[in-house]
């Protein structure tokens, strides 16, 4: 029988970690939840500082948020992406260099 909730592992890096004060955590979402639902959950949990890093003022994904789902880069702005139980999300601020 399918569960009506899913557990998602979230890992924060760089200044996102400073906004959450945790390296990683497990969150529980309704089955079929999207990436947007996960990010909304995190913003509600950790407050406005993190929300600013996750969302633009118009509610779209922040322009410099980088998300990996199971170590695959999520195309920018694809907040409708459905998540599955056991997924791992890696959240970074966009930085580059080398």
């Amino acid at each position, binding site marked *: 029988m399918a569960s009506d909730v899913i557990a998602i592992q979230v890992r924060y*890096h*760089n*200044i996102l*970690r*400073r906004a959450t004060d945790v*390296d990683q955590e497990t969150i529980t979402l309704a089955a079929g939840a999207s990436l947007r639902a996960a990010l909304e959950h995190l913003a509600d949990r950790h407050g406005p500082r993190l929300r600013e890093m996750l969302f633009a003022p118009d509610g779209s994904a*922040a*322009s*410099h948020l*980088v998300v*990996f789902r199971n*170590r*695959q*880069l999520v*195309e*920018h*702005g694809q907040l409708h992406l459905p998540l599955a139980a056991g997924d791992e999300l*890696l959240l*970074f*601020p*966009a*930085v*580059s*260099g*080398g």
Partner: protein
Amino acid sequence: MFPYHGYAGKWLHVNLTTGQIEARELDPALAEDYLGGNGLGTRWLWEQVGPAVGPLDPENLLILAAGPLVGTLVPNGCRMEAIARSPLTGIYGDANAGGFFGPELKFAGWDALVFTGQAPAPVYLALADDRAELRDAGHLWGLTTAQTEAAIRQAHGDTRVKVAAIGPAGENLVRFASIQVTSQRSLGRCGLGAVMGSKRLKAVAVRGTGSVSIAHPARFHDIAVELHRRIRTNPVYPAVHAYGTPGIVALMDPLGRFPTRNYQFGSFEDVDRINAEALQARALVRHLGCFGCPICCDKLYRLADGPYADTALRSVEYETINSLGANISNADLDAILAANRLCDDLGMDTISAGRAIGFAMELWENEILNWEDTGGLILRWGDVDVTLRLLGMIARREGFGGVLAEGVRRAAAAIGRGAEEYAMHVKGMEIAAQDGRAQKSMGLAHVTSTRGADHLKAFPVIDETGYPDEARRRYGEEYLPEMAQPLATKHKPLLVKDGEDLGAVVDSAGVCKSGGTFVLAEVYWPDIAAALEAATGMEMPVERLKRIGERIYNLQRCYNARLGITRADDRLPRRFTHEPSPSGNARGQVVDLEPMLEEYYRLRGWDPATGWPTIEKLRELGLEEASPWPRT
């Protein structure tokens, strides 16, 4: 009287063979066509160092130059250039460093220093404003770069003296020897420390008390303040300020762009032990900045305890964390810092040094090397004691270290037995901590760079993790989504070409690629043109500036073509084109290089068969005299 502001209007010619030092006036036409810094050095190298002059011959030039924005109010107007024919690659070579030496050179009243010849005994150049003299450096020969800097400052009785020095590696002509600049910023790449060593020039010490004149001070002030404001409010700024380049360690790993065990993998299983958070928790003392920098990506680190206790250093960069970390399967952060400090002291490029050791470790893994080859060293992945020992052996050219001191291309040829397959280089330059399979533009950039494998010539950050807003702003909506997608090849030749031309201008003006132009993708052609025009008084419409960048890059290509470089040399190691990446977002990917290269040549106006600039392109740039084509 030099007609443009921003320049000192003169340069110093130092003949180390005769000891003659001569101040010369800068030709205004050179400033108009090549700006300064990198462009100036490119032109002089092309004019004066022909194919018959070997990199370690006395006739090779060593050019240290600071462009017209160096020492001014613009953000991070701090960069200096070194240019010479490279001992590592045998072709055009340059290196770039931040810190304070470049501004000091300008404050002393010089746009460039040009060294030729070979001193009969070790010397250093002491330069204080317009007073220049060669001093005996016999007592400095053999010292580390930090010791050299301290000794010179003590002798001069002035801690404000800025020193560029080589260490034992440069003295021993290690082909990837660096020139260390006050003393832990590096003119790292291309082995220009060996050029300095071949000239028996141990150091250059500069103290300047002047200033840089500005053509339109009020306008320039407003431009500079606005650029500072934009950088500080750029959305990428907080992360770059907080962690510097180590901040991308954790990010590159899931991309599959974090080379591990000599590029066998693009992700490192122990990355959490060596990422920026671990580094700062373990060793951060304070944030530091280069001259005029609002970002301060530099940091001071110190190990308080452990086997390398009291190791202190600055400028621990992403590249070094990779080359002396994941690249050799080393998750011991303390050992990475110790190895970094050792390379700085010995005067070696941490990228090439780490790559040489990673190359040797993979040869050992595949039983291509054995005890007899290494003189008894066991080159197991991640062995930090062997790594530290080997770094010293390389700098001293001792035993097997002497083999690796030649760089991976020559080392592979000397070892034979199929070792070439494991030598990760382009044109003799060890590839840095990127993997073109994970970022396709970087695969192209590595082969089109004029100094051999290099991420910094094109520095294509737009598609590293995807900056769609910047891609849209710089190139237009029609280039999305591919321009911002790391695995797409479409549009990447344009990204690379534009980056190379912009980079040539940035390195010639003297500002920083990490300081707004590339890493933040904030400062672009119009901004640099406006700053140059206000600073120098030279009319600088954007199209003219673009033409200057293109001219510099084409002349570097012509320099290499004159040495026999053709399209056949624009190739990646087989690993990148034939072995699918096993890692992260790049899993299953290879670099499909040829279509990108074909399009790149077309955009550049280069002949697709030879990879040389066409006569038409050279004529358009005023470079007919540099044509590599046979005269008819």
